[in-house]
């Protein structure tokens, strides 16, 4: 292992940072053609209804209205908007437009007009007659409800996943190792507890946007705020029954995604209008639409049982889950399996482990991919229960974890059994610095198990809590990324990647990886990404994959590039390619090689810059473009790890919980750009803290969303949190690019349990339902009295 790096593990300013701060046109809506038709959606006002009639006559009379399209005007092809690989592990249960609407905000009709005001007015003029049906809003009632959310016969799955739409079941999953019931019955100490988590909104600040136009070749061009252009192209081709060669999808800069832009939304309707009218179109969500009609995190009910012997050796874990996927089944199965597969292996020495349950439909805003992706919910149940077990044992909760946690050169059968939608892969853990993370975290937060609570004045109490977490680095054998490098005159390189920078800085860190392998400066790598016409394939930005999967692809591309360079120089000088070496600046004949002195003009070396001009301008019939491609698909998905510690202050009078200090010691392997890795963790922590304390998608009794703006759905401001202190363990994963693992999701996982555990230490009450609002905390404190 080499840690003598010149480009990676170094700070580098985000390459698009200055341009974005200066407000240069960058995001989808900044770039949309001025003549684009403005597209608006007529959306359902009911949670569940059958459309009887749509009267668009008044709207069509309005000057400037181009078209109104309903389910009568569109192809009826069941798709999933999940934005996943192929075959998709989500039910195909969504039509472009349908006669049924399944949640308030579901698409009813599409309006296109010459400007915003006309389009808005037209939406108001469209009269929809509904047969209102009884909505199913409670996931607990899904299986026995008379309401069937998906009565249509066309919905199907691409492989068996326990899909039973008549019972409102989107998918079912069960796994079992050993005899959990028997082992638990023999344990000295057990914990049995039900935890519930709420739906959380992504709340990326840029609302979803897309525009569409025909180019000079009469091909459909989609520009959108998508996290995955290639999957988007494939799904658009599927729903419009169009060969993929006729579609181009690209993304400009994206104002945050967090999984919310992995799904296909507006692209469908921009393409519908452009293909129907031949005209450019654009569609931008209002904030209300983002809340109501994009996706949210799966709401879950988690029943966990843990057991240990007297010494605190964990013997068995049983986790049974009910998950609410809302009106459509995007990511239903895979978020569910991640709930187990990205939490349970933390404690790999158990004799028995069981995980399973169902994912059900309701008439709520659909759930989809969201940072943490099941792992965050599983972690909340597991890490809360671990602290409950520690309390029963009279043991320091950190020590209980230390005794049982996974370590290097260990494995878990879960890795082999549980994949994303199918079987997993065997994996030996080659990097795991949890012990360091735990030790360092204890030191930073000043952890004293005998003094986790302290009174402060004015009826306030302070307390500490902690949790561990793991995540993954891409989906092994499924996620693929690729990269192409091309030498340019003046001796710099173009780096073409399908990977999708959604604001994380991936373009920057991927250039650093290319530069490190080539031996050149990052300044000599010019990045172009995420365009189905112009960049090689990549699955896109999800599953914590970009650094690991695309990073490894870039290393292969760079290795191939060096080979191509050596061969071209060898040919130019009539020597053997294996005698040429490249140091990033010049190509020269190796000392002591048999080619010494054989170069045609007697020189021993040529600079990359000179050679770049030669190969493009000076070599007559031998001139050529030098380019190389590399692809990567992982055999494994090495988990990053974290130890999270917090200190909170609870106001016993009001029930308000404040996070004063959050310490997160992270093992993400080599942080390719430590500043950008740190901000990924800090941002994840704050989203996790928001989910723990107040973020909640709230519906009325009829299913309408009450939390559909930033006043009702509060995301943390800079006044709402104390210190966030992030450090990295020295770690190196041999399978990662220069030792790197993922860092995008791991930060969000620990706050739920760590803060809940601290609240228990503060008040002696165990709250088992998130978020920990002042009302709930106060009621719990009062119930103690």
């Amino acid at each position, binding site marked *: 292992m080499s840690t003598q790096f010149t480009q990676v593990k170094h*700070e580098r*300013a*985000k390459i*698009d*940072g*200055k341009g*974005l*701060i*200066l*407000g*240069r*046109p*960058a*995001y989808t*809506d*900044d770039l949309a053609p001025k003549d684009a038709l403005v597209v608006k959606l007529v959306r359902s006002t009911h949670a569940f209804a059958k459309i009887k009639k749509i009267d668009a006559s008044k709207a069509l009379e309005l000057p400037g209205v181009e078209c109104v399209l309903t389910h009568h005007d569109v192809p009826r092809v069941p798709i999933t908007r999940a934005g996943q690989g192929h075959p998709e592990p989500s039910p195909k249960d969504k039509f472009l437009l349908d006669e049924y609407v399944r949640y308030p905000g579901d698409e009813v009709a599409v309006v296109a007009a010459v400007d*915003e*005001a006309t389009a808005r007015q037209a939406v108001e003029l469209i009269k929809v007659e509904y047969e209102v049906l009884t909505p199913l809003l409670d996931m607990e009632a899904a299986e026995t409800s008379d309401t069937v959310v998906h009565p249509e016969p066309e919905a199907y799955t691409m492989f068996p996943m326990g899909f039973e739409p008549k019972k409102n079941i989107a998918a079912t999953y069960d796994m079992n190792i050993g005899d959990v019931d028997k082992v638990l019955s023999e344990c000295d100490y057990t914990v049995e507890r039900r935890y519930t988590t709420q739906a959380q909104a*992504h*709340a*990326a*600040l*840029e*609302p979803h946007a897309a525009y569409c136009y025909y180019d000079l070749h009469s091909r459909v061009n989609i520009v959108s705020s998508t996290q995955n252009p290639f999957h988007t192209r494939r799904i658009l081709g599927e729903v419009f029954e169009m060969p993929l060669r006729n579609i181009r999808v690209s993304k400009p*800069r*994206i*104002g*945050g995604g*967090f999984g919310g832009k992995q799904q296909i939304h507006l692209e469908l309707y921009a393409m519908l209008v452009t293909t129907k009218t031949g005209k450019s179109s654009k569609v931008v969500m*209002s*904030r*209300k639409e983002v809340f109501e009609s994009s996706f949210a995190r799966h709401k879950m009910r988690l029943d966990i049982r843990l057991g240990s012997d007297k010494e605190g050796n964990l013997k068995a874990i049983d986790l049974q889950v009910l998950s609410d996927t809302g009106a459509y089944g995007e990511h239903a199965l895979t978020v569910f399996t991640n709930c187990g597969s990205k939490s349970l292996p933390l404690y790999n020495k158990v004799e028995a482990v069981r995980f399973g349950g169902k994912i059900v439909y309701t008439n709520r805003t659909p759930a989809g991919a969201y940072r943490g992706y099941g792992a965050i919910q599983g972690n909340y149940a597991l890490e809360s229960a671990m602290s409950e077990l520690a309390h029963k044992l009279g043991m320091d909760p950190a020590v209980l974890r230390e005794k049982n946690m996974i370590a290097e050169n260990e494995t878990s059968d879960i890795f082999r059994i549980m994949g994303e939608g199918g079987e997993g892969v065997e994996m030996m853990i080659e990097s795991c610095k949890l012990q360091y993370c735990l030790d360092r975290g204890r030191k930073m937060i000043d952890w004293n198990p005998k003094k986790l609570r302290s009174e402060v004045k004015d009826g306030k109490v302070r307390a500490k809590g902690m949790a561990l977490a793991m995540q993954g680095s891409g989906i092994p054998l499924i996620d693929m990324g690729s990269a192409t490098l091309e030498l340019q005159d003046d001796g710099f390189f173009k780096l073409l990647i399908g990977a999708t920078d*959604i*604001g*994380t*800085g991936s373009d920057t860190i991927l250039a650093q990886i290319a530069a490190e392998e080539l031996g050149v400066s990052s300044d000599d790598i010019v990045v172009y990404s995420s365009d189905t016409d112009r960049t090689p394939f990549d699955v896109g930005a999800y599953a914590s994959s970009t650094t690991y999967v695309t990073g490894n692809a870039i290393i292969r591309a760079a290795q191939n590039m060096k080979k191509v360079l050596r061969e071209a120089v060898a040919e130019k000088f009539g020597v053997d390619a294996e005698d040429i070496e490249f140091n990033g600046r010049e190509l020269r004949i190796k000392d002591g090689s048999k080619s010494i002195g054989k170069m045609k003009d007697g020189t021993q070396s040529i600079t990359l810059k000179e050679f770049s001009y030669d190969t493009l301008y000076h070599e007559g019939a031998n001139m050529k473009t030098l380019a190389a491609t590399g692809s990567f698909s992982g055999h494994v998905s090495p988990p990053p790890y974290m130890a999270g510690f917090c200190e909170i202050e609870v106001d016993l009078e009001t029930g308000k919980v404040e996070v004063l200090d959050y310490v997160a010691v992270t093992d993400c392997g080599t942080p390719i*750009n*430590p*500043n*950008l890795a*740190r*901000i990924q*963790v*800090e*941002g*994840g*922590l*704050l*989203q996790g803290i928001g989910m723990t304390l107040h973020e909640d998608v709230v519906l009325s009794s009829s299913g309408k969303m009450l939390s559909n*703006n*930033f*006043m009702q759905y509060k*995301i943390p*401001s*800079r*006044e709402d*949190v104390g*210190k*966030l202190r*992030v450090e990295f363990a020295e770690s190196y994963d041999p399978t990662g690019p220069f030792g790197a693992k993922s860092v995008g999701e791991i930060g969000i996982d620990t706050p739920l349990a760590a803060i809940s555990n601290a609240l228990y230490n503060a008040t002696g009450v165990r709250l088992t339902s998130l978020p920990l609002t002042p009302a709930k905390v106060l009621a719990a404190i009062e119930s103690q009295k």
Partner: protein
Amino acid sequence: MTIELKINGRPRRLEIEPGDMLVDVLRNAGYVEVKKGCDTGSCGVCTVLMNEAPILSCSTLAVKADGQEIITVKGIEKEATEFADFLTAEGADQCGFCAPGFALTVHSLIKENPSPNEEEIRHYLAGNLCRCSGYEGQLRAITKFVEAKK
């Protein structure tokens, strides 16, 4: 109706409807550095300066800008460029959607209070939301920027 105003030091005459919001008028007139994030005056990305004071252009009627002076981030480009150096050096920038509005509020903060402490920085900028960063890096960058400006 027509409004006449100064945008980034230049006189402009713009056709508007009485109910138009300033953010939409500015974006339609080509000032796409003004972002639109929430429609309810809650997130701060649409911040511009009106007569040197920060306002939320998504909850300001365009007609109110008649006869006034509007500054977008392009109007403080030199200072925003300096600030960008601090922000990017700290690795405090992510998706960038909040950045132009944020840079304008930082400009106003320093103008009103050349030596803000941490609490004052957090308080003044509380209305500029960021969903990516956790705010820590921004705080470090602002603190260093304030020092350098002294």
